[in-house]
């Protein structure tokens, strides 16, 4: 495990150091990898711990992007990113109580539907305002954005680790196993689920803001694209949901795979995404993390 930690620290260090020696292309790849690690890791704070599988995390990413585009130019970008994270968390707090009343497949469908609803509402608002996409002109330097994104990936990973090894995480695991039994032995299930939901929404909000600043273009259909949600779930499941390294492995594997495919066979990307998910769900339920554990002889 010591070796593992050292490896992850080296990886984060490499990501942060890329601007000093890497090409623009490599910086782009690292930005993508860090982004997906941050998203998948945040998703795992709710979904891997409680078993409430969110298929709507694009909504937090989109809310973050939208808030950020509205605030850019008005306040410094650092504050816009924090506001993006705060808004996503606030949005989760507002919708959390009703949404978390249902579980299993209903929760999956509800989160997906809600995300789509918000996407269409924002599209309507934007077209009513006569705007078909907003350009941003004054964006921070690419390496600054990269450092922020690597920082978010590290933060999300530390957060996920802290949750899993805390009293909070023990309560969430009990909720995943049997919510009624958990409540009977004193676990405040509603409060814990809501806190996990908020925790898992905040970083995706900041990620949405950063991704927006990197492309310097906001378009609601893209910012709230459900493919973002699908990709998060696929990465987390392929990586493995029963450890913190799972989302990292899944995000790295997929982000690198998609880089390869985008440059050679872009139309294959979604097909490969789907096939990989099927293969892993059927044959490798513990994901890449489980495979690595078996090879390494560790747990």
């Amino acid at each position: 495990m010591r070796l593992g930690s050292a490896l992850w620290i080296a990886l984060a260090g490499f990501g942060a150091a890329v601007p000093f020696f890497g090409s623009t292309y490599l910086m782009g790849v690292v930005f993508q990898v860090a982004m997906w690690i941050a998203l998948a890791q945040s998703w795992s704070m709710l979904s891997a711990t409680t078993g409430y599988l969110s298929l709507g995390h694009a909504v937090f990413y989109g809310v973050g992007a939208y808030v950020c585009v509205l605030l850019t130019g008005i306040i410094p970008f650092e504050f816009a990113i924090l506001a993006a994270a705060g808004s996503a968390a606030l949005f989760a707090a507002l919708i959390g109580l009703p949404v978390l009343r249902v579980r299993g497949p209903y929760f999956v469908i509800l989160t997906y539907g809600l995300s789509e609803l918000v996407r269409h509402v924002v599209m309507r608002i934007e077209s009513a305002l006569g705007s078909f996409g907003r350009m941003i002109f004054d964006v921070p330097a690419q390496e600054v954005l990269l450092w922020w994104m690597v920082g978010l990936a590290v933060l999300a990973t530390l957060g996920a680790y802290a949750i899993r090894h805390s009293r909070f995480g023990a309560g969430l695991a009990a909720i995943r196993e049997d919510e009624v039994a958990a409540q009977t032995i004193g676990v405040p299930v509603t409060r814990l689920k809501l806190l996990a939901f908020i925790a898992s929404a905040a970083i995706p909000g900041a990620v949405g803001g950063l991704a927006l600043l990197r492309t310097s273009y906001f378009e609601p259909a893209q910012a709230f694209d459900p493919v973002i949600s699908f990709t998060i779930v696929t990465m987390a499941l392929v990586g493995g949901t029963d450890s913190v390294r799972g989302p990292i492995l899944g995000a790295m594997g997929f982000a690198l795979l998609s880089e390869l495919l985008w440059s050679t066979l872009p139309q294959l990307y979604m097909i490969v995404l789907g096939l990989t998910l099927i293969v892993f769900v059927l044959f490798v339920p513990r994901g890449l993390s489980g495979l690595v554990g078996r090879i390494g002889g560790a747990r």
Partner: protein
Amino acid sequence: MTLLDIKGVSKRFGGLMALSDVSLQVNKGEIFGLMGANGAGKTTLFSVIAGHIPPTTGEVVFDGKRLAGLSPDRICRLGLCRTFQIVRPFAGLSVAENLRVAALYGRARKLSATEAAQIVDDALDAVGLADRRHLDAGRLTLSGQKRLEIARALATGAQLVMLDEVMAGLNPTEVGTMLDTLRRLRTERDLTFVIVEHVIGALMTLSDRILVLDHGECIAFSTPEEIGRNERVAEVYFG
């Protein structure tokens, strides 16, 4: 001293009166038996007391506090915990981890890791599951899972433990062990028990007082000896 006071509790499910005007007092340190045929309302009464379903009328007072409107987790933190007739282990967690959650979130919250570990060890010893602590709870035998239910309730630090048919499905030897365990827990830990049981012999030997429910109504409330002589009870049970 009265620990649990049930005052005129009724529960209506549509046209069905699951409980009608049930009143009883459980004293501190007592083992209180609840008898009744299938559908008599025993489990419904448990669910009302533990806060899983609200009563239609009447109220429940535990340790001087009214439980009306409190969620099951709040009630547990006050020191009242139930088990389930159909066991509900956290199947994917180890036996010890099941109890650790109870210790961390039950009545004695805000524990250090060592204190929680001590509570887990004590509860495991109390029910004889110490040697299976690392096993996934889902892999325990039924008897083991019934004992896990009890251990988990104990680990919450509850003063009053309500056991819903913890002996159903156990063989006679296991029933004997369970009786010894419960008696020992009462004296060693100063606990109060409310017990629902189909194994009538067990209930008769264990309980200080017994209440018999039939179709949601209380038809007898007395010591085991008198319940044994009660004609109405015999009629309900044996036709």
